């Protein structure tokens, strides 16, 4: 379990100069009015740990370091983020520059350049290193680190979203958190392939039209055969030699048609030959369409079968995990629901375990349509915190109390105090807020809390400034019994 103990950022996002923050307390609160660079601290941690800031790369096509550098930073300032970490008794330092990471081991001042994969391997479970595909492993690790260690307003919404159109995004985030992100991603790719095949064929309608056309041609072919059989009492058989001969003959006939048609006694023979040609041509068309339709159909079904194999395995595993997770998430959720509405909380059916269901009396509710904004946020926080206790390490929460009412905000303060006391040696939390009353109240809550492993239980930073004028930690103080 790796904990981040200190973070330094320079010329990054909304921080033009340098800002250094200490996270050695089990809980650190970064307070500042909006626009002072609170979220930049969280972004810096994400960039350091994963090499990317999702909310920026999602919004910007350019992405990359250019979007992350503070526009107000002096030209000569190099953008950098540095973190100090501990893992048991071992400590190390990571420096992230736009082009690379460097790692400094304890007692060794010579940095070693390292890769994103190696860095992410330090913060994600060892399991991910089993993945042999060099393209897949970093993605798995990045998804996991993001989902397990960072809670932002957008992931808050995502965690409790049950809208069907957002299923893929939800599966990516929660699947990543539970270690099955790649299974969902592969299922999704197979499904996209099948959908694109369908669309390329004009969708279901196009495929149906082709199939109708095929049926029509088959009928026509059968009719022609019947006519010919009735005339000759000898139905023609598909014969390659005969086909070639006829083709040659028909070619000659084509050329001589004008002359021949003048001769009435050739008329009936010609009709018969044309009929034969039509029959042969139709056979070709029918065969081609049939093969085409069958091939597309077969590929599409195979892709959907494969998607089902991946999805079923992922869902089964997630269902097991969620059953255990909800034994903890529901108690946290019910703590911050002073006005009790729900009796229990469950995962969704095996087909879609992320369709949460809350029960109240004899009724069942799903978060998206039935939960209030506050309840949704409470639930997302509960899931995140329940997970954090099992994962250990450092967790970043960007504005987690925005929508909470007074009573539930106090309950959440109690929950954080409980987490600090119970999991303090294993976890540390870094939280941002723009609410001064929340900070003041937290300081009161922690006033008589003893130190945790010799560290004050709560450290508070108050940031001041703007990206244009510079951002600094104007105040830093600790709460708790010294």
């Amino acid at each position, binding site marked *: 379990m790796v904990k981040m103990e200190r973070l330094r950022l320079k010329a990054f996002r909304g921080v033009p100069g340098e800002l250094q923050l200490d996270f050695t307390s089990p809980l650190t609160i970064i307070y500042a009015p909006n626009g002072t660079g609170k979220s930049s601290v969280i972004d810096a941690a994400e960039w350091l740990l994963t090499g990317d800031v999702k909310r920026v790369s999602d919004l910007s096509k350019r992405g990359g370091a250019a979007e992350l550098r503070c526009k107000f930073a002096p030209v000569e300032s190099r953008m950098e983020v540095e973190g100090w970490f501990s893992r048991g008794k071992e400590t190390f330092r990571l420096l992230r520059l736009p082009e690379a990471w460097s790692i400094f081991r304890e007692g060794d001042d010579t940095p070693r350049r390292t890769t994103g994969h190696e860095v992410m391997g330090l913060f994600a479970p060892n399991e991910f290193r089993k993945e042999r595909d060099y393209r897949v492993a970093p993605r798995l690790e990045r998804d996991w680190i993001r989902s397990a260690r960072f809670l932002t307003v957008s992931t808050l919404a995502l965690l409790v979203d049950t809208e069907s159109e957002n299923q893929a995004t939800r599966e990516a985030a929660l699947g990543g958190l539970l270690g099955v992100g790649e299974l969902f991603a592969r299922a999704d790719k197979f499904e996209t392939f099948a959908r694109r095949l369908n669309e390329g064929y004009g969708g279901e309608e196009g495929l149906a039209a082709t199939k109708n056309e095929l049926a029509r041609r088959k009928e026509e072919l059968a009719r022609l055969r019947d006519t010919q059989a009735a005339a000759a009492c000898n139905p023609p058989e598909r014969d390659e030699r005969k086909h070639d001969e006829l083709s040659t003959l028909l070619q000659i006939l084509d050329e001589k048609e004008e002359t021949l048609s003048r001769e009435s006694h050739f008329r009936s023979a010609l009709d018969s030959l044309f009929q034969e040609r039509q029959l042969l041509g139709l056979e070709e068309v029918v065969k081609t369409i049939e093969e085409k339709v069958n091939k597309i159909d077969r590929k599409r079904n195979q892709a959907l079968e494969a998607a089902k194999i991946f999805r079923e395995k992922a869902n089964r595993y997630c269902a097991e995990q969620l059953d255990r997770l909800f034994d903890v998430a529901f108690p946290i959720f019910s703590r911050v629901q002073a006005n009790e509405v729900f009796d229990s909380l469950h995962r969704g059916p095996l087909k879609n375990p992320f369709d949460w269901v809350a029960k109240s009396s004899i009724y069942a509710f799903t978060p998206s349509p039935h939960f209030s904004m506050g309840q949704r946020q409470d639930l997302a926080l509960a899931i995140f915190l329940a997970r954090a206790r*099992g994962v250990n390490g450092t967790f970043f929460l960007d504005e987690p109390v925005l929508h909470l009412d007074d009573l539930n905000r106090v309950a959440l303060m*109690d929950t954080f105090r409980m987490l600090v006391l119970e999991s303090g040696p294993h976890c540390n939390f870094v939280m941002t807020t723009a609410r001064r009353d929340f900070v003041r109240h937290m300081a009161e809550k922690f*006033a008589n809390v003893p130190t945790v492993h010799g560290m004050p239980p709560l450290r508070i930073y108050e940031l001041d400034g703007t990206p244009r004028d510079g951002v600094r930690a104007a105040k830093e103080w600790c709460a708790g019994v010294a």
Partner: protein
Amino acid sequence: MDSVSELTGLIDLYAGAVGLKMSSPPGVAGVEEGLVIRWEAPYAQLVLWRIQSTGNARIRGEVEKAQEILDGLLVSAENRQSGVVDGYLLLFLGNEPDEKLHSLIRSLELDTNVCRKSFIWPGEGDTPEARWQRLWRTTVIGLPGSPPPGRMVELPELKEPHREIWREISRSGSANAARKELAECRRW
């Protein structure tokens, strides 16, 4: 084991995890023995109060009395040290309350005067944690253990036709692989 002993054992376990220790003696001076059990830490006090009364008005009266006693305990604790000491009142009912009592419970649980109050009664379940589901509404105590982080689940074995499609998808992406497939069909 009677239900109060089971509950007391459970509170002791999860209160202990956050530094709350059962006071010695466990009761409160001036209150009938066995009616109250108290856990304390420098930052908070938790009182388990066995409700003796029946009927809304009497229960409300008893809760007010319990609240007053806890208030006295908190004031004296705050006088001994600086800073706020939070109080939590856990109100024990022997059985699940009937519908008539529910609105009283709700209004008392939402009332933040002096301390957070929560009612508790035994329910059904295979484990003490499940039987005392309402205990988890007490915001000061610890929680049952969270499951360990999800391990990466191995990828399932695919048959050759599936693998063939996957090879094409990994080479050129889902959309391009489908486009290629369609183009091949159109060439016929």
